[in-house]
Every structure is written in C-alpha cells, then in structure tokens.
C-alpha cells in the first residue's frame, strides 16, 4: 500500500562500488521483480530497502518519506527470506505473533490476526508445531504468514522459492500470485534469479547488471523490446542468438548482410547514415523457422538435437566464433542431426544491436 522511490541510490563497501545510479519509481500495488546474474547486487538492493544494509548514497522514500535512516522495523516492510529464517525455538503461532507481541498489541488482537492468516495459508493444523516438524513448503508458508500478519505496506521477497524442489516451486509460485491477487494494494518487491518466476509474477521486471539497472519494463516489453544485448540474452530460454553483420540497405525496413552468409530483412527503420553500420542481429530460437527461400537468414549443419516433445531444439555448428546458434521448432522433428537446415524469421521479430545497444531505443 505504498509508493517506493529510489533516487540515485548507490552502495559501496569501502572503495568498491557494487550499485550506482539506481533510479526506480515503484507504484502502490505493483509486484516488482529484481532479476540479474549472481553478484549483480539484486539482494543487496533489496536489503537496502529493508534497512538491513546502509544506503551509501542517494535517497530512498516510502510514500514520500525519506527512509535512509529509519530503522527497519519502522519502515512498514516485511521480508520473506530464502532460508525462511523461522525462529527455531518458537511454535508456528509464536513465530507469527512475535512482531505483534513486540508491538504490544493485545492478546486477543494477536490471536485473531494469526488465526485469520493461518486460515488463508492453510496453516491452522500446524500452529502448535515447531518449524523443524514442518516440510519445506509449510515452512515457506509460515514465513509468508509471518509477513502478512504484520500487515505491512511493502512485502520483500528474497529468492523465496530457491530452497524448494521443482514441483513445490511451481505450486508456491502460483500461491504467491494468488496472494498478490488477494491483496491488490500491497506493494511487493521480489528478488530471483529464475526468469520464469520473474516473467510469471512481475508487473514490472528490473534487470540489474554491472552495478546498475539495465532495463525496467513489463515482462513482455523486456521480451519484445530489449534495450540491450544483455537484457535480450538474459530474458528468454534458450537465450537469443546474435549474428554479426552489416547494414546493407536502409529505410522503413533494414536489410542486414550477415557475416555468416545470410541476409535478413528487419522491421526496424534506419536512416541513410546507418548504411554500412556494424550490427548484431538478434533472433530468438523460437522465432527461427525452416524455410526454402533462397535468401535464408541462416543455414548450417545441425550438430545436436534435443527432443523435448513439445519442442525440438537444434544446435548448429557455427563457422565464426560465438555461441552455437539455437533454433526451437515446435513439435517433434526426427532425423535432422547432421543435415543442413535453412532458417528464416519474421522481420517483425528480429532485433538489431549496435555496440550492445538496441537500434530500437536510440
């Protein structure tokens, strides 16, 4: 139930700056997901919002009030930790009551709040158990319950699903989505390295890289209009193929002659001055389709195939350096290994990058 504003926020440990120029405006009711490779500072940023790490520079505001020096407990936030961080010596009820007891609420009020939340999270039968007598999924629910009981303005999640097995992770992810649905006015900030969690949960995703924000946008915006090669390759699995080439003709559509021999027509307008520009053509594996046309985007010998049933992944040998070109074809394709396949793509689904930055965002 709050707006968060980060203005030129930075974090440094001594001489080492791990985060700089973080500008972010999080509106009430949003579920913001921080993603990025490990070590990008996403957890640090979350801990700075929580107040567990000092903010080295810039301002952090909740509802217009500067929070830099406000103690964590008075920021109106609740956090769910990756390791659950339940108090091992307290029962589930005591775990969930602890914050309210410290806040000197009445016993009846605490009891009512805990019972209500336990009902929502189906924890009622376990209220008198110690955390060690619960399964991983139940512990995670207690941790979430402990946050809800406090009725915070902002929920923070630090990789809450990382310690769960695959099946439980999917189930809990859906529970969190439903929880968000039930609390439309709560603001949530969620850190993960799992892009599926990011794509499915987020109202907006913040991609962090190299100590700063690479791009902020809705999941589909990041997928369809990545600002840089980094975001393009980080979102989507397998990651986007990049093929080096030169702009051969400009206009409302751009013709790119690829170093590997192919040509590609891209639905991105370019100006006269861009003729001869060195670019990387970006194409997602799922956008590559087999073609018989003479001017294929890519032609190569299939080195490995991975049949997943719903899709088949083709890995191509590549003449020049760089990661193998991957194509994702729907359905089952057998006997393609060692054969040469010609691939084309819809011009509207191609991306152009010059020096790492998308030409769309110039």
């Amino acid at each position, binding site marked *: 139930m709050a707006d968060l504003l980060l203005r030129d926020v930075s974090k440094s440990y001594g001489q080492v700056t791990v985060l700089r120029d973080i500008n972010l405006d999080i509106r009430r009711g949003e579920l913001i997901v921080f993603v990025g490779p490990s070590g990008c500072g996403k957890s640090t940023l979350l801990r700075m919002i929580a107040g567990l790490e000092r903010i080295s520079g810039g301002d952090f505001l909740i509802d217009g009030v500067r929070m830099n020096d406000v103690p964590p407990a008075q920021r109106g936030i609740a956090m769910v930790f990756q390791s659950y961080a339940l108090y*091992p010596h307290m029962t589930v009820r005591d775990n969930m009551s602890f914050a309210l007891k410290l806040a000197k609420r009445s016993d009846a009020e605490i009891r009512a709040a805990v019972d209500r939340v336990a009902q929502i999270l189906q924890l009622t039968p376990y209220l008198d158990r110690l955390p060690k007598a619960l399964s991983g999924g139940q512990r995670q629910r207690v941790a979430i319950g402990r946050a809800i009981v406090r009725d915070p303005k902002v929920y923070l999640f630090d990789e809450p699903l990382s310690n769960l097995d695959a099946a439980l992770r999917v189930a809990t992810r859906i529970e969190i989505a439903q929880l968000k649905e039930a609390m439309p006015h709560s603001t949530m900030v969620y850190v993960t390295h799992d892009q599926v969690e990011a794509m499915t949960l987020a109202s907006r995703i913040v991609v962090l890289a190299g100590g700063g924000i690479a791009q902020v946008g809705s999941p589909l915006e990041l997928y369809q209009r990545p600002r840089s090669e980094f975001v393009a390759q980080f979102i989507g699995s397998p990651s986007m193929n990049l093929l080096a080439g030169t702009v051969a003709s400009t206009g409302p559509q751009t013709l790119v002659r690829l170093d590997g021999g192919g040509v590609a027509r891209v639905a991105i307008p370019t100006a006269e001055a861009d003729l001869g520009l060195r670019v990387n053509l970006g194409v997602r594996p799922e956008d590559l389709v087999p073609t018989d046309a003479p001017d294929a985007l890519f032609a190569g010998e299939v080195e490995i195939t991975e049949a997943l049933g719903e899709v088949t992944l083709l890995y191509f040998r590549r003449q020049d350096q760089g990661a193998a070109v991957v194509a994702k074809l729907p359905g089952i394709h057998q006997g393609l290994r060692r054969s040469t396949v010609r691939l084309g793509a819809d011009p509207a689904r191609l991306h152009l990058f010059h020096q790492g930055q998308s030409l769309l965002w110039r």
Partner: protein
Amino acid sequence: MNPALQALITITVGVGGCVGYFWLSNLVLDRVLFPARGPQAGRNITRANMIRPWLFLFPALVALAVYLAYPVVATAWLSLHRDAGGAREFAGLDNYARMMAEPKFWESMRNNLLWLVVVPALSTAFGLLAAQLTDRIGWGNLAKSLIFMPMAISFVGASVIWKLIYDARPAGQDQIGILNALYLWAGGDAPQQWLQIPFWNSLFLMAVLVWIQAGFAMVILSAALRAIPEETVEAAILDGANPLQIFFRIKVPQIRGTIVVVWTTITITVLKVFDIVLAMTNGQWETQVLANYMYDKFFRAFDVGVGSAAAMVIMALVTPILVWNVRNARREMQ
C-alpha cells in the same frame, strides 16, 4: 641421573610401550591366534574382529579399574569401618553419624551449596556476555584471548595471584593489594583482611573460580552464538526487536542446550573445588568446602572413616549432575 633425561626415557618407554602393545597384540591376534587362512579363515576373521575391540580397550579398562573403580569401592568400604588398633572393624553408619554431628561438615555443605549456585551462574553469565560483546568489536579476538588466558593457570597459581589482590598491609603503609588500595581510595577507613570476613570471604574465593571458568564458558558459547543463522536475527530486527530482545528472545533460546552443558560442566568443577580454598584460607573463617574438609579429615587428622564418608558425599552429589551433563552433551552433538 639428570631429571630431564629421566623424563625423556619415561616418555620414550611410555609411548613406545603403548604403540608396541597395540601393534604386537594386534599382530598376535591376526597371525597366531586366528590366522586369516586355512579352512577356518572366515570363522577366524569373525572371531578376531570380535576380540579386537576388547584387546584395544584393555589398557584403558585396567587403568579405570585400578585408579577409579577400586578407589570408589575401597573408599566406600573404609567409610563403613573404624580403626580398631591397626585392624578395621565394621562400624555401620557410625562414621557418617560422627560427620553429621560436626558443625564444620554442615558449614562445608552450606558453602558448597553457595558455590554451586554462585559460580556456575556468574561464570556462564560473564562468559555469555563476553562472547556476545567480543563478537561485535574490532579487537574482540584479543579480548577473547585475554579472557581465556586464566584457563591456562592452575588453581593454586590463580589463588596466589588473587591472594595478592586481597592482600592487606597495616594501616599507614602502602597497600599492595589492589582491593584494599581501591577501598582506601574510595574512602574506606582502614585496610580490611578480606579473607577473614565470614560469608564475604567465600564470595572472594569464588571470584577466583569465576575468573578462571568465565573464559571456558565464553569460548564454548561464542562458538554456539556464531552458529545461530544470521537470518533469524535479521528477521527479528525487521519484526521490531531491540538488541536486548534479540539477545534474550532469539539468540539465547537457540543456544539453550549449550548453556546447560556449560553450566553443568562448571557445576562439576565447583563441587570438586579444593585447591583454591586450600591455598587461600585452608577452610578457616567459615570458608570450608567438602573437598577440603575431606582432605583435612583424611590426610591431616588421619580420621580415615570420616574422610571416606565425606568423599562418598561428594561423589553422591557429583554423579547425578555428571550423568545429566553427559546426556545433554550427547544430545547437543546429534
């Protein structure tokens, strides 16, 4: 012969003897008694493996029998007999009755009880405090070494140091005892003979043991505190707990098992306390404790019966705590 040479020879013979025993007895078992060959090879290997643990335990069992089991039985027997012109005759509980009739025995019991309450409590409390505080400061490791150092000093050595602290010189002279120096500086009228003021002198003796044991408590509790998951502390901070609440409601409950082990371990040391009292007051001025009382009776008054009875009382007091301590320590290890 040079004593150093003697020591060297003793060490060589002792260690060599131990190694030799294990190696040779193992060899005899495998090669001579039950060789792993011939038609009975399988059966022989099984039998050798059944005997081997006993073979290796044998020296320890002998040592325990001679130095622990036999003295316990002999002391129990002595406590039930009286001296009758060189021979021993059965006396029933007469020795115990005589002991109970002595005010000095009850004084020892009372003092031991006081030691039992004060020393483990203060040692554990100071240890816990030191463990928590030294973890939070830059020179914490140095502070830790200093606090732990008394552990390396023998009880008698510590007593000598503390006797100097409690030392009193006639009024008018410079006081070399720091307690009297402070007392006079703070406005005291005359130097006090601290070790001769009943009741308080017992507390002054206890200070010595607290000084020694707090280091032990600190080291164990510091390790336990560090093993507490950091996230539980962070969660408590977010829940609004202040540092005191975090310490008493989050940290201490999580290391309760370790605290109990430390507490009972110190309790056992306390019940056996002897050297400090012997070296500082020798039980005078109402500071007597059971172990020193036993020593007094047994080796100074040569009242073997009452001395043994006192020893049995100490054992009866220590045993239940020891059992509890071992159980707790085992549970901690799981």
